[in-house]
């Protein structure tokens, strides 16, 4: 048996064991069924959610929020990071502001932003973007700063235009750092999206998880958490694929 097959088999066996133990514990009353329903009940609840199509609205709400917020954060973070990295003027202008805003635990800003901007999609997107922008920005900046000066000199020797230098030299060289920042921003963005949905209660996975908990519908609650976990795992896999395409030279 190859190493890979063996590890997969043992892994599946291990997960299956946990599920069976949990099922037995719940069935024979070792744990309170209301608090921790057996996996079979959760699976049934999950199947109902998917079969009815109920899963779509909250999921799409979260996806929509996250994609916009994260997209804005990446574009803004890379643009400002590049600008600050390349232009001493921009660096001096924005550095104090960035240093001031960056260390704020973004979760603390959620109620503040709701107060300021009102409760709605715009606020939630702002929160996600605000939380996710800093890792991207800082990493882009450091990526640009870390570029070998010889590379830049070479570009100048070949009389590359500023645009060409940016596109052909600076961006590819800073790409690994940018992607690292984007990866951190990814998990931070999901955390803030869920928190914002919980505190604002419009819709989305964060809302339904809290809503089912408040109604003590624990089977549905765990089913929704499973949906959220799948969403998180899917995003992370997607990101790894994109990373492989964008930076093929960075081995895994």
């Amino acid at each position, binding site marked *: 048996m190859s190493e890979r097959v063996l590890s997969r088999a*043992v892994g599946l066996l291990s997960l299956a064991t946990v599920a069976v133990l949990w099922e037995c514990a719940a069935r024979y009353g070792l744990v309170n069924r209301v608090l921790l329903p057996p996996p079979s009940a959760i699976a049934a609840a999950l199947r109902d959610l998917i079969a009815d199509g109920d899963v779509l609205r909250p999921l799409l709400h979260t996806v929509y929020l996250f994609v916009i917020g994260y997209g804005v954060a990446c574009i803004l973070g890379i643009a400002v990071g590049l600008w600050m990295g390349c232009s001493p003027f921009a*660096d*001096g202008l924005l550095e104090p502001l960035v240093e001031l805003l960056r260390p704020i635990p973004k979760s603390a800003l959620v109620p503040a932003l709701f107060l300021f901007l009102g409760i709605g999609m715009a606020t939630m997107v702002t929160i996600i973007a605000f939380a996710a922008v800093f890792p991207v920005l800082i990493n882009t900046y450091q990526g640009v700063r870390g570029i070998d000066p010889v590379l830049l000199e070479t570009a100048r020797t070949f009389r590359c235009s500023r645009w060409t230098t940016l596109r052909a030299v600076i961006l590819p060289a800073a790409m690994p750092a940018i992607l*690292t920042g984007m990866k951190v921003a990814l998990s931070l963005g999901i955390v803030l*999206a869920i928190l914002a949905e919980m505190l604002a209660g419009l819709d989305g996975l964060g809302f339904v*998880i809290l809503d089912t908990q408040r109604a003590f519908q624990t089977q549905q609650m765990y089913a929704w958490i499973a949906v959220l976990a799948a969403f998180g795992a899917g995003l992370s896999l997607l990101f790894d694929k994109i990373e492989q395409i964008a930076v093929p030279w960075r081995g895994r």
Partner: protein
Amino acid sequence: MTDRSIPSQVVPSPAAPAADGARSWLRHSRRLNGVLLVVALLVLWEVSARLGWANSANWPPVSAVFVALLQGLISGELLQLLASTLMRTASGYVIGCGAGVALGLLLGTNRWARYVLKPIVEVLRPIPAPAIVPPLILFLGVDNALKIFVISLACFFPVFLNTLAGVAGVDDVLLQTARTFRVSARKTLLSVVLPAALPMIAAGMRTATGIALVVTVIAEMIAGSAGLGYYIIQMQYALRPEAMYAAVICLAITGYLLNRAVLIAEARLIPWLGK
């Protein structure tokens, strides 16, 4: 790796060769722009609140926020809340990092442990921290047990994964050398594997530092009755937004100092990490 602060020492770009004095002056004048920008934004905040542009009781002038901050600091209330928040952050951080390193070493050095446990960790990992709070409240209640558990779980994953990667990346030659010299397994782990994996572990712990405070505030907000996270919500309900913003500023300063402290500690403790 991730949350490193902008080096305050601006590296002179090769395009701008200038005399030292002139450069330092230039740098200061550039930073002056930035400070002016911050001041301008604060003035805008003050003016917008005073002139009622926002037309909301929830938008206090920045001067009121600073007064509330000062009052909170002088009366000791904010410091007390901060201390309780930091106590939770620190406990969760230490437990999460400890478990992350221990499990990372175990799974990194033993493939059976890795086969059995890694899938379980992988299944749990993509669940964002706020989502595990509602089910956990049903088991752990709303006190420190819940909050510290959630914080440690959030700190655990980056430390664990980095430790695992660090152990996997240890040079085989090193291990073989240790074996050739008949170094005991325990000694190999302590004096070969651990130091070699340390830079990765440190990077994981740095990521965890950033996460710890964010998650502490989340846990205090969702299952609140203590700490700055709860205070923020409480002040929102008590119609005292200036006190709420003061607490946010207090957390921002804490976050900044924490990040600095980690960078300094790292430079001291792992001198070979380099920049």
